[in-house]
């Protein structure tokens, strides 16, 4: 039984005040417990938690490179198997490391079916290097490599559907979660860790610095992402969606308005067509995952 009162991610780390990823690290290690080996990729979490000699990790932890956490974890898992040890292998990587540079290694590791849990803390850009666009950056978000400008509305591409890609690899358990719902997040982590095979949990971790909002709003922004349907919390077992969080949906504008990365959709001029396109994405998500709570008419 995992003692969930333990704090396995220590104080003194250098994350921005209000950091979603830091909260994710805390909650994940709480859910997985002391009998865990964490494999991290290069990124915000790795950098703010391990400037030599100050480590915030109270579980065994290894960081190698940016792209290879899945391959390193494959080696750790094989070694533990050979040595007859019981520690759970948990990968913690950002969206840049997961959606982009780590694709080869993730695909290989999932295809081989290693017994580990891959947790992607998704702050929707390369935050550690100063907010650059990744495959997880949503449509029209302004980043330094997809800036909004006189002839651009920001990121031109939709968010890559990483959970589906990994479900297609045969991952027995795939889930999306959010720091806005910590109990749900921890439950999913626990489920993933206790499911044999390569499992994937994508955790929405809003970034106040990168998205442009006050640190105290991190949880509120995360909730709005879900309430507008732009982020859907769901679970897939053996490739089939078994559960999705239902919401009374709010218009996407309420979410977009809160963040400077979407400010160009409202100022200097309101961009109706762009906002409509984003609304369409939310509507598609809502349909696909059946998240709309239909209020009975009085």
């Amino acid at each position, binding site marked *: 039984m995992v003692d969930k009162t333990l704090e396995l991610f220590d104080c003194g780390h250098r994350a921005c005040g209000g950091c979603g990823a830091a909260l994710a690290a805390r909650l994940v290690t709480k859910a997985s417990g002391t009998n865990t080996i964490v494999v991290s990729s290069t990124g915000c979490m790795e950098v703010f938690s391990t400037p030599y000699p100050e480590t915030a990790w109270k579980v*065994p932890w290894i960081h*190698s490179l940016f792209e290879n956490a899945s391959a390193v974890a494959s*080696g750790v898992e094989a070694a533990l198997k050979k040595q007859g040890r019981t520690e759970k292998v948990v990968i913690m990587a950002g969206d840049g490391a997961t959606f982009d540079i780590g694709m080869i290694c993730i695909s290989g590791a999932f295809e081989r079916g290693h017994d580990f849990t891959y947790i992607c803390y998704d702050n929707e850009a390369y935050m550690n290097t100063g907010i650059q666009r990744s495959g997880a950056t949503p449509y029209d978000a302004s980043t330094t490599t997809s800036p909004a400008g006189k002839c651009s509305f920001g990121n031109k591409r939709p968010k890559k559907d990483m959970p589906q890609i990994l479900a297609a690899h045969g991952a027995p358990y795939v889930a999306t979660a959010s720091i806005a719902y910590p109990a749900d997040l921890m439950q999913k982590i626990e489920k993933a860790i206790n499911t044999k095979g390569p499992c994937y949990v994508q955790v929405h971790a809003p970034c106040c610095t990168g998205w442009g909002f006050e640190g105290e709003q991190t949880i509120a922004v995360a909730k709005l992402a879900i309430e507008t349907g732009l982020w859907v919390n769901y679970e897939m077992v053996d490739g089939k969606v078994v559960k999705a969080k239902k919401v009374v949906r709010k218009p996407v504008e309420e979410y977009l308005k809160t963040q400077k990365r979407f400010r160009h959709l409202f100022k200097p001029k309101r961009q109706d067509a762009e906002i409509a396109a984003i609304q369409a994405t939310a509507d598609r998500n809502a349909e696909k995952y059946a998240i709309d709570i239909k209020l009975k008419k009085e």
Partner: protein
Amino acid sequence: MMEITEGSHAVADAVRLCRPQVISAYPITPQTHIVEALAEMVANCQLDAEYITVENELSALSACIGASAAGSRTYSATTSQGLALMFEVCFNAAGMRLPIVMSIANRALGAPLSIWNDQQDSISLRDSGWLQFYAEDNQEATDLHYLAYRVAEDHSVLLPAFVCFDGFILSHTYEPIDMLSQEDIDKFLPKFTPYERLDAADPISFGMYATPDYYLEFRYEMDRALKGSKAIIQKAGKEFGQMFGRDYSAMVEGYRLEDAETAIVAVGSICGTTKDAIDEMRDEGKKVGLLKIRVFRPFPTEDVAKALAHVKRVAVLDKNISLGAKGAVALEVKDALYGSSIPVKDYIIGLGGRDVRKKDIKAIVALIEKGEGDMFYGLRREVL
């Protein structure tokens, strides 16, 4: 026990005797036979190891990093393009001080694509912090694996090691090999005792980042460990000699060098051809000798300087070239002989698998006697 076996298979057998717990494998000519042989051993319960068929070479070495950090002895093999693809992982493995051993069946680097032998691949990683052993023949290729694990895992070293042997020339040729037994190797190479490992009972963070206040010191420690490995090579190599009759304590070996006027310096299988050429030249009255370099990193600077101190001229055979400068071995030899007036000439030879014959060695000796060198030997001007 004497066996006639293909170089790759002999290496695979040597690896098996080292009892690796985790092997990662990706195919690339001309090392593929090694990993295939290992796969067969695992499939037939002759080798009790976790065998990971990774999806690319950088994952191959990354898996070794994970396995080694978790406390298992680990192994992989690659060459050329594969080694180049894992460039950053090599630096990472060394910096993380993990005693991984990797076989390199030396092959030329593209472009242009070439599957044939030269030593550019491993030589190009001479800055990485890995130990580098080079085999003259398949017996050495086999034995050097035992030595490599023994030295790499020593707690005063804790650096990964390349065991290099020329692709096709050695990997695909059959030679008589004295294969040692499991009992023999268990005596020489004890069970892997990691200095530290990933362990829930004693949590450690591996691979933290270093600010400018610390980075220099970490690199200094690596350099110190690599240079210090000379003493461990000496000790372990001598012990191997005492146990099995083949002494590997020396990082360099002279052949008919004591009274030589012309010294040839070479690395790898080319040494075998050179020795035969030297015998013939000696019969003709030429005072030629060979200095074979068996360990390239750490570079045996003092040993090279001492061995060549008495000669009149040095011809370095380089199966590599640092483009825009010279062959890597020649540059090191020149550094070793700095301050002496002995002329050192560089001959870029055998690139991309071009055959090196006894007559080529003799031609090079004739060239250096005329004071000619620092050239691509055997350049076919007619195709330029």
